[in-house]
Structures are given as structure tokens and as C-alpha cells.
């Protein structure tokens, strides 16, 4: 086999690999991207029902209710809007009222969210960048509309 031939084969093989990978990535992206929503985002632009999303915000003070059979209900807020969350299972160690939380699951009804997983953090001082951003955004909007200064 000549050098040119070999190069052609290698190139073809590499291109096929790249093509397959791109196809795999694109189809996977189409179905499996999980978008992040704050309660305000959900009110403004409702995600399609049955689509997995991530909901992030603060666990509202005094909202955590523990029901029998390991079900927990609480409210997630970004200071502007609030949404009810139901979750069955053990909560991560750093799940607390007044602390940031990210829940993955689906929207069920107007302002009801069924969480499949509650993402834990390892560090109390850590705030996921999305939450920090959405809190800041909600703060800004509220300041704008009511003229009060939060924080």
C-alpha cells in the first residue's frame, strides 16, 4: 500500500469516527440536556411537561415538612417567586432551610415540582454559580419593580 493510500484510509477512518461521535453527541444533546430554571424562569417560560429540569434557589425558611414514608415537602424561592417541591428519599447532609438547593426532576402542575434527586454540596460556603446568578437576577428585578433594597 502506498503512503498516500494509507493516509487516505486513516483520514477516512478518523472522519468516520468524528462523524459518528458528532451524531451521538448531537442526538444525546437534543434529548438529554437538562436546563436550569429558577422559580422566576419557570413562571416566565414554562418548560415542556415531562421534561427533566433542574430547579435551583433557596429553601424557604419554615417551609420544610417531613411526611411519613420518607417524603419531604418544601418550597424553593429566589426571593421573587416560590415553587412547591416534593421529594421522596433521604436528604443530603447540607440540606437546610435558608440554604441554596438544586433539585432535579419534573414540573407537575402550575407551581408543583416533583424532585427525583436533591443535589448535595460538600461545603457550606459553596453556592452553585447558577443559584448565585438567579438570586442576583431576582434581586435586581425586585429592586426594579418595588424600589426596595434587598440585602
Amino acid at each position, binding site marked *: 500500500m502506498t503512503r498516500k493510500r494509507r493516509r487516505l484510509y486513516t483520514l477516512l477512518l478518523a472522519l468516520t469516527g468524528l462523524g459518528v*461521535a458528532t451524531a451521538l453527541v448531537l442526538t*444525546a444533546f437534543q434529548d438529554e*440536556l437538562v436546563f436550569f430554571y429558577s422559580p422566576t424562569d419557570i413562571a416566565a417560560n414554562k418548560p415542556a411537561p415531562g421534561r427533566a429540569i433542574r430547579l435551583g434557589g433557596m429553601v424557604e425558611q419554615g417551609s420544610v415538612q*417531613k411526611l*411519613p414514608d420518607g417524603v419531604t415537602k418544601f418550597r424553593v424561592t429566589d426571593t421573587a417567586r416560590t415553587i412547591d417541591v416534593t421529594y421522596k428519599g433521604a436528604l443530603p447532609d447540607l440540606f437546610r432551610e435558608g440554604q441554596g438547593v438544586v433539585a432535579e426532576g419534573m414540573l407537575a402542575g402550575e407551581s408543583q415540582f416533583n424532585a427525583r434527586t436533591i443535589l448535595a454540596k*460538600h461545603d*457550606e460556603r459553596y453556592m452553585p454559580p447558577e443559584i448565585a446568578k438567579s438570586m442576583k437576577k431576582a434581586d435586581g428585578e425586585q429592586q426594579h419593580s418595588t424600589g426596595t433594597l434587598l440585602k
Partner: protein
Amino acid sequence: MIAELGQFALSLALIAAIAQAILSLVGAHRIDARFMAAGARAASLQAGSLAFAFGVLLWSHAQDDFSVRNVSENGHRLKPMLYKLAGAWGNHEGSMLLWILVLAAFGAAVALRGRQLPATLRARVVGVQGLIGIGFVLFVVLASNPLARMFPVPFEGNDLNPILQDPALAAHPPFLYLGYVGFSVAFSFAIAALLEGRVDPAWARWVRPWTLAAWCCLTLGIALGSWWAYYELGWGGWWFWDPVENASLMPWLSGTALLHSAVVVEKRDALKSWTVLLAILTFALSLVGTFLVRSGVLSSVHAFAVDPARGVFVLVLLALTVGGALTLYAWRAPQLKLGGLFRPISREGALVLNNLLLTTACATVFVGTLYPLFLDATQGRSVSVGPPYYLRSFTPLMVGLLVAMAAGPLLAWKRGDLAAALQRLWVALLALLIVASLTWYVQGGGPWLALVGFGLGAWTIVGAATDLAERVRLFRVPLSSSSARFANLPRSAIGAAIAHAGLGIAVVGMTGSALWQSERVLTMQVGEKVEIAGYTLTFDGVHKEPGANYVAERGAFRLQRGNGDGLGTMTPERRFYPSQRTTTTEAAIRTTGLADLYVVIGEPDGNGTVVRVWHHPFVPWIWGGAIVMVAGGLLSLADRRLRVGAPRASTPGKVAANVVAADA
């Protein structure tokens, strides 16, 4: 005073790194032996000063010297000694010091142990290590000094994040860094080869042991991290496709590809320019990993509080290193002499396929990890890419890799006979079919992925055994002759077969734990029973138990097989660390080697205690497989030194500056 000595050592290390880079590179350019020798001494000085600085940090942590800010932020008087020491690298500043120490140690190791390398090549490798060193030592001195003092001196430290106070996690960062940073040697060899304008089989033979050592450490580091996530986080999973985990997986994938392509350079003098590129990319991915973990730009379940300014510093270093290396590559690579020819169906061809699949898999992980960052920057939308994405993009590529993995080693170099290779794999094919049909029978149809996973696991393990059996001509010559052949096999061949089998074992573990796990979540009261996978657990209540620096709520569960004999007690804990007002979950795990029973308790509330019980079939095989892989790597590493012409420690007095390997 001690801490100031350490700070002084850090500054000295910076100067030594500058001297190391300049003296070595200039010396190599001018072929001046005195310059090059001075550069090598500077490399030892840099490693020595950093070792001293790190020793000072360890000492300060062991002594609870809270006047050092790093100690006061991560130390505590009540902490057990192991975690006092682990506290030295369980935080940003200390772990970066460990990072540069490993980097400098590798540089010094090449300078000291690389006597059989051509002098200019060695000097260039040492010089490039020095260049990387300058950047990162500067980073530590300017932006993340672990030995900085604080005033007033607090009476008590803030303590190390309790979730990190764990033996596996104490060992995780050192191994991970030995792996990450170990690839810097392959990088430096690649740059040195580009500067020299020469890549030949001897070069590949020198690069391979370093890469293999780094690969072994990285494999172990990743396994330790995932084992820790499995038993400490109490979520019952062992891999979450989290950015921080992906950060260590990407260099592993490309490093594995590099190991294999270096074989082609060594045996066949082909794929040279590709191997050089792969060496650059592997270290680049290690730097990307460092950046992702240290900057906090990505939302991660493993993230800790971080300082964004430091992320920018690492990003600039990353851009300089990778940008410089790739520019040099674009300029010099076309001048490399072209390598030998081979047919697509051959051992080389199989290794090219291996490289294609591994780098493509690495690319899918890269895209999945960084796409959220890209989308956030361009459209301002936050997304996360979760496990389903990787299941659909990464897994098919791995399936292809496993299929090819058994056949590759059976093909001859230059031109192979695929039909003959497949014929010899009939036992493996039989194993695949038997295991797949058994799986189908056991789960009554069920997810086809389980059939594929278990079947391919068996295929890979038996395929690796076939490789060895073929080499010793088992059952075709008398057994005594086979065993004599086995004794004469190169260790690298045995090591490779063992590592391949290890991956097969791990694949069985991953498949079993992902698809067959069962889970029960319930609120239990004292005396209640829960059944799972044929076991019965009776809840005996929770009592308080003091620990070294925590108070544990220890639950007790009596374990029975069905309603039969007692199998003892399982005691999951929740540990409350008063110093950080934090609670951690300690799972109780009972393993049979084939499956784990896994119990965690949650917070007690009015209705009882939330209990989560898992049955994880095959999960111990994941780490068992990883250990087998590392064992295979180490065996192969042991081979290199014994081989004629392979790197060997030269005896004192022997003039060995320019020895070129005998069989080059």
C-alpha cells in the same frame, strides 16, 4: 519561624525553576555539558526546596500552628493525626503546593535517573519541566501561598471539612496528582522531541515508563475518589458524571491512548507525530482538569468554595502552556521523519482504532463537560449535562472499544489476519454468548444494555486470557513447554493482558451496579423490619456514640438472610462535627465480594428514622477491576528496567551520557 523558612524555600524554588529552565535549554542548544549539568542540579534544588516547604506545611498542620492561615482554616486540635496531615493537601493552597512538588519531583527524577538519555534530550526535558514549574510556582507564591501567617492568632482552627476526613480521600489527591502531573513528563518529552526534531523508537521507549507510572497512579487516584464517593456521600452511586470527576477521566482516556500509540512508535516507528500531539493533549487535559476544579466555573456536586481570581491565573497558565506547545507542534511536527507503513488490519491498525475510540470518547466527555460553560457564555442559559447524555454518547464508543480490545492483541504487526484472530477467540465468543444468555434468563429479558455489558465483560476477560494462552501455545504443545514459554514472556505482555482483564472485570461491576441495584427508602421505628434482595434487616434503634472530634448517632440493624441465621449487625452513622456544625453520613456496607448491602440513616423526625437501603450487585468488581488494571500496569513497568537497552539506573562511574538503546 519555621513557616518563614518554608516561605523562603518557596521563593528559592522559584529561582531554581528559572535557573533550571534557562540553564538546561540554553545548555542543550549550545551542547554545553556544564550548563546542562547545572540545570540538572537546579532541578534537584527546586524539588528539594519544594519538599522542604511541603514538609514545613505538614509540620505546621501536625503541630496545630494556627498562626499559619492555612492551618487555622483547616486544622483543629481534636482532629486525629492522619487528618491533620491530610489537612495539608485537603484544601486549595496545600493541594497546589503538592501539585508543584510532584511536578518538580518528576523533573528532578528525569535529571537524576535519566542517565541513559542523550544529554541534550534529557536537558530539554528537564528545561521544559522547569518552564512549567516557573508558572505554577509563581502561582503558588503570588496567588495561593499556603504558608502565609495570620494575625491575631486564633485559639482554635476551623477544622477540615468533615466529609474529607476519610482515609481514602486522604490518599486520593496525592495519587491523582502523581497521575495528572506525571503526564507533564510525557509533555516535556514531546516538546523536547519537537525541539530536537527527532522522534524514534528509543524516544518512545523512554517516554513509556513515565507515562505508564503516571497512568497507574491516575487509575488508582480515580478509583479511590469514586470509592470514596460511593461509601462516604451516602447516595449509593459511585460515578456521577460530574465536571470534577470528568476532569480526571479526560486525561485518563487520552493518557491510555498515549500508552498505546507509544507502543506503535516503539515497535514500528510509526504514528510519531500523532503520539507527540497526544502527549501534549494529555497534559493539556490535566491542566484543564486543574482549572475546572480550582476555578469553580462549573457547578459541581464536588465543588468547594473557590476564588475566581485564581481560576483566571490558572487559565492564563493553561493558555500559555497549551498555546505554546501547539504552536511549536504546528511549526516543527511536519519536519518529523515519516514512519513505517502498515495495513489497516494489523496490530498497528488495531492500536489506531483504539486511539480513535479513546480520543473520540474523550472528546464527548470534553463537550459534555464544557458545553454548559459555552452555552452560558453565548446565550446566558444554564444547563447541565447529566448521566443520560454520557450513556448515549460515551457508552457506544466504549462498546466498540471493548469489542476491538480482545482481537487487537491477536493480530500480527504490519499485516494481520482478522479471520484467524477471530477464530482463536472462539472461547471468548462462547463466554460472551453464555453470559449474555444467562443474563437474559436471570432478568427475564430486561434492558439489553445488561446483556451487552456482562457479555462484553466476559468477552474481554476471556479474550485477555486467550491472548496469553496463544502466546504460550497452551494445549498445542505439552504443558511443561507452555509453562516454560510463560516464564519467558515479556512482563509487558502479561501486564497488558492483566490490565485488559481488569477493565473487563470493572465493566461487569459497572453494568451490574447500574442496572441491577435495588433500593428501599422508608421511615422506620425500632423493631421494624425491611427486606431487600433476600436479606432482612431489623432496626434496633439509634444511640449516641462519641468519636475523636465528632458525636455519632449510630443506628443498629440486625441482618438476617431471609428469616434464617443472623449475620451480625450493621451500624450506619450520622456524625456531627461541632467545629464546623456539619453532619456527615457514614454508610454501613456489608460485602460478599459479589454484591454489597448498603445502609444509611437520615435524620430522625417525629415518625421515626429515614432509612435508605441498597443492594448493589457486582459493585466491588469496579474497584477490584481497577486494582487489577493497576497491577497489570505495574507488572509492565517492572519489565522496562529488565529489558536490554531500556532505562536502567547506571552504576556510579559509568560513562553513560550518550548511550543509545541497543536495539533501537
